[in-house]
């Protein structure tokens, strides 16, 4: 797993004009942009220099500076940001590096100088394997619990043409096992495709035939968009939390 820690080392800051007024502001802005750009780039270091430096540039630009240099050495990213003002140009360079951490936990730290350290992010993510339990998983996770008289199936990871059969099996098991008020919680779903939608429609029909109901919990816009495009938002009751889903009646409609 790519559980990594990053320590940010500010290697140099210089090249700016007279350190008064707007020049000081510009220097601070350049430094902040370089720091954030290097951190952002280092978080993408596993994708290679193109992606890492493109991400760094986005962050540097968003912070009102211009990225004049970016270099990836191993998993270390060095970013130089530049801010032009009337009295000259301020530039700053930051380096964000990473070291694997034994024991599994990770930190992404920023050395603010003077002994101050900020923890910017607690997790790095391997694009292939994921790291945070229950999120960013490549595969499918399914867990069932009972809330009041509802059966809540929490789905995590990716529901696609490869993993959807497992979701179908679990839903069939639940209905065969007597579950009638079923809530499928999609809150941890990272990816859902048409195969997954087909499985949900199948479960909806199976439950209706058995006198039951299927409700979905889905609050994230990318997923909601999929339901809108396919008009399935007219078919399923959609709720923004398990609580509201289980509080609604058997035939509760989307609120």
């Amino acid at each position: 797993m790519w559980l990594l820690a990053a320590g940010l080392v500010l290697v140099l800051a210089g090249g700016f004009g007279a350190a008064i007024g707007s020049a000081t502001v510009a220097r601070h802005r350049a430094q902040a942009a370089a720091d954030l750009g290097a951190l952002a780039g280092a978080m993408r270091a596993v994708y290679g220099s193109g992606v890492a430096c493109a991400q760094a540039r986005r962050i540097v630009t968003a912070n009102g500076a211009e990225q004049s240099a970016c270099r990836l050495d191993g998993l270390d990213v060095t970013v130089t940001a530049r801010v032009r003002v009337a009295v000259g140009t301020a530039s700053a360079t930051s380096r964000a590096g990473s070291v694997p951490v034994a024991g599994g936990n990770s930190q992404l730290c920023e050395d603010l100088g003077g002994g101050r350290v900020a923890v910017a992010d607690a997790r790095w993510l391997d694009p292939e394997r994921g790291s945070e339990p229950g999120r960013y998983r490549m595969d499918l996770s399914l867990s069932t619990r009972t809330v009041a008289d509802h059966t809540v199936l929490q789905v995590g990871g990716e529901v696609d043409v490869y993993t959807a059969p497992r979701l179908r099996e679990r839903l069939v098991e639940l209905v065969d096992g007597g579950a009638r008020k079923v809530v499928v919680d999609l809150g941890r779903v990272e990816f859902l495709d048409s195969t997954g939608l087909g499985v949900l429609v199948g479960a909806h029909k199976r439950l209706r035939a058995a006198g039951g109901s299927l409700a979905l919990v889905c609050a994230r816009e990318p997923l909601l968009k999929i339901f809108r495009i396919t008009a399935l938002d007219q078919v399923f009751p959609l709720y923004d939390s398990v609580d509201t889903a289980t509080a609604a009646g058997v035939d509760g409609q989307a609120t």
Partner: protein
Amino acid sequence: MATVRLSFSPEPAHVRTVRLVGVAVARRAGVPEDLLDEVRLAVGEACSRAVALHQRHGLRDLVAVEMTDTSDFVVRVIDRAPADGPAVPTGPLMSPDGLSEEAVAFGMGLALLTGLVDNLEVRRGTDGVGTEVRMSWQQR
């Protein structure tokens, strides 16, 4: 212009690999971050459709994918299945009641493709066999 080409056996497990490659190439091509989710979904849908068609016809031929970075980012997914039935939805979405799960998924896949991709073309393969789904996104 940069081109990435790949072919894969018509197995569901490989669709995710193509999605990952598609997003990586799109990102490199400069497709805006906020469109990458759509690229991911559309590439996956086009490949799922091709895999389903090959499996339905018992074909082991490879599905071909070509991504090119010209003025637009273009993805072409090419299957070898005989053309039967409409390649894109011809009318408003029907109620999903009464359709098989596979038919629902197929219809939803096409609905997603048409809903997500601004420039979508579905046409016969160049040699008269199979279909080509061509999708493109503008780079900013």
